């Protein structure tokens, strides 16, 4: 009986900690949303923003410049940043768990290099649809990595190695394209950095759809992810078909990442840093970790996008890398001291 009460105390404390964190996150989300919708070159008071976002807005009012700025420019951009950041962070959680490699991130399986190559090829060849080209590049890279890994046994080590090889090969391809691109070099470099500016409502809703398709299955298989993340064969011994789970979830998550990269370019460090940031607070259980990673990653990316915009429309990938890099170092140093 005493043991049981110790356990229920522990569970209650854990629930309380998660609820407090969720409340904080909600406040941050609301403030970020208000900031991103109300502030900009043309500040609009928050009360007016609320009125403009109402679905019952009259047809005449929808056509006012104010309404267009909020509804068709700022809202899609905010949604895109939230959805993409959330997807990348949740993808990072899944990859780090499945490959139990702390350096795994959404781009580990060659997605970024594939998308970059596809996009760069699109620019260099003056191809009008860069986004589909990037998405196709990401899919081809993902397919090659999975095919190489599956043929060579399908283990985690093979996946990571295949990812490294495909990444290196395609990165060289991107460099080659840059070297011969001449006049399009600037466009390629800028696109590779990633940006949410000019995000359309369609693209941002697409990212949310991709996020739902990749994060929800990962959440449903959260307990299996827990078992697999414990170590070599641990999942198999606890009744999980590791190879199928790994291939299935990695494909879904990578497809989601490919959709993000195709629409908004490569936004680095979010998928690497957010899982590491949250594990000490939330713990290693995947179901809560996925949910919190999604919302934290979304908020942080929206903040980074805001910062990028206020600094004169920098590419958001530069901001996340400039903040994320040193921040990751700080996390590593802190964890090193803790143990």
């Amino acid at each position, binding site marked *: 009986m005493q*043991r049981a009460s110790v356990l229920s105390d522990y569970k209650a404390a854990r629930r309380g900690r998660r609820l407090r964190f969720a409340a904080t996150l909600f406040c941050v989300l609301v403030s970020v949303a208000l900031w991103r919708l109300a502030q900009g070159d043309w500040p609009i008071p928050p009360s007016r923003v609320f009125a403009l976002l109402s679905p019952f807005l009259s047809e005449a009012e929808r056509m006012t410049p104010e309404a267009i700025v909020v509804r068709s420019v700022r809202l899609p951009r905010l949604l895109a940043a939230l959805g993409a950041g959330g997807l990348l962070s949740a993808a990072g959680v899944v990859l780090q768990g499945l490959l139990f490699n702390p350096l795994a991130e959404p781009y580990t399986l060659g997605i970024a290099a594939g998308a970059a190559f596809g996009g760069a090829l699109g620019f260099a060849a003056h191809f009008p649809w860069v986004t589909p080209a990037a998405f196709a590049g990401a899919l081809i890279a993902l397919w090659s990595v999975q095919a190489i890994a599956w043929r060579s046994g399908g283990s985690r080590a093979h996946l990571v190695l295949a990812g490294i090889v495909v990444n290196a090969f395609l990165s060289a391809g991107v460099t080659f394209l840059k070297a011969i691109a001449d006049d399009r070099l600037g466009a390629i470099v800028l696109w590779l950095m990633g940006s949410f500016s000019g995000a359309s409502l369609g693209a941002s809703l697409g990212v949310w759809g991709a996020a739902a398709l990749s994060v929800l299955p990962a959440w449903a298989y959260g307990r299996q992810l*827990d078992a697999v*993340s414990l170590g070599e064969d*641990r999942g198999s011994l606890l*009744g*999980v*078909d590791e190879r199928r789970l790994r291939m299935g979830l990695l494909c879904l998550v990578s497809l989601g990442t490919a959709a993000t990269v195709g629409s908004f370019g490569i936004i680095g460090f979010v998928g690497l840093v957010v899982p590491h940031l949250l594990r000490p607070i939330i713990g290693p259980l995947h179901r809560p970790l996925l949910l919190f990673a999604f919302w934290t990653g979304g908020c942080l990316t929206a903040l980074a996008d805001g910062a990028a915009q206020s600094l004169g429309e920098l590419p958001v990938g530069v901001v996340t890398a400039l903040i994320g890099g040193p921040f990751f170092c700080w996390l590593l140093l802190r964890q090193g001291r803790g143990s």
Partner: protein
Amino acid sequence: MQNLMGDPIRFSQLEVSYGGAPVLSGFHGAVRSGTLTALIGPNGSGKSTLLRTFAGLLPYKGSLTLGFGSEVREVSRTTRRELGRLVGVVPQQVRMAAPFTVYDAVALGRLPCRGAALLERAALPERTGSEEDRLILDAIARADLEHLLFRDVTRLSAGEAQRVLLATVLAQDPPVLLLDEPSSALDPHQTARVFSLLRQLADSGKTVVAAVHDVNLAVAYADVLLALTRPEPNGNALSDVPPERPIGNMIEKSIKELDEEVLERIYGVPFEPYVSRKGKKAWHVRES
């Protein structure tokens, strides 16, 4: 060899290869229910390989079945999920990759018995959260880990981590338990504790197979000895085996039949028997 159908583990013509070279070949045998079987043999004789094959982790040729009553199934045609309910394994590698608490790690032992994905939940007997928790806490208590309930498993000592894995299998509560050197990191007190626990499990009807290096531990607790012998230097009956990786034989003995002659056949060195004041027997390698 009666009651052929009911043996929890049965194998014939069992052949397992690692990277093209056969490690086990042409083995026949069975593990009877309600016994504690000690799997002994020199380094590299294939003990871990045999246990991993029993657990369905390695591909094999020949036949390997798990049988419970009239229900007999081939391991290679059993899903991982069913294997998770039938067989529990304490692996040799005890390091954990993720910082779960002891409670959360042991709770994962209930995974094969729970609805896995949301859809499969209906197929299993319903247990409330508190019943599950009672099973988990009970497993933790039996592995003597209550004082470490909320500790991070990556920061435990090797012996404690080994007991976390044992507790996980106890929570899993399968009819067959396979343990690969379950006492490799344990002190003498914990070793005795774990082996009497294994003895109790076997007496309560579970089938337990433990790979051990300490022959005297096997003598003290096991009923049956399954020994993988050293490969014989000048090849053996299996002439088609490449000479760089000859394969030994398997010897099955009741524990009472163990003597220095059998031990010498297994390990290839002479053994000296010792008898304690209370008449208990033990063996050590004879010093030359």
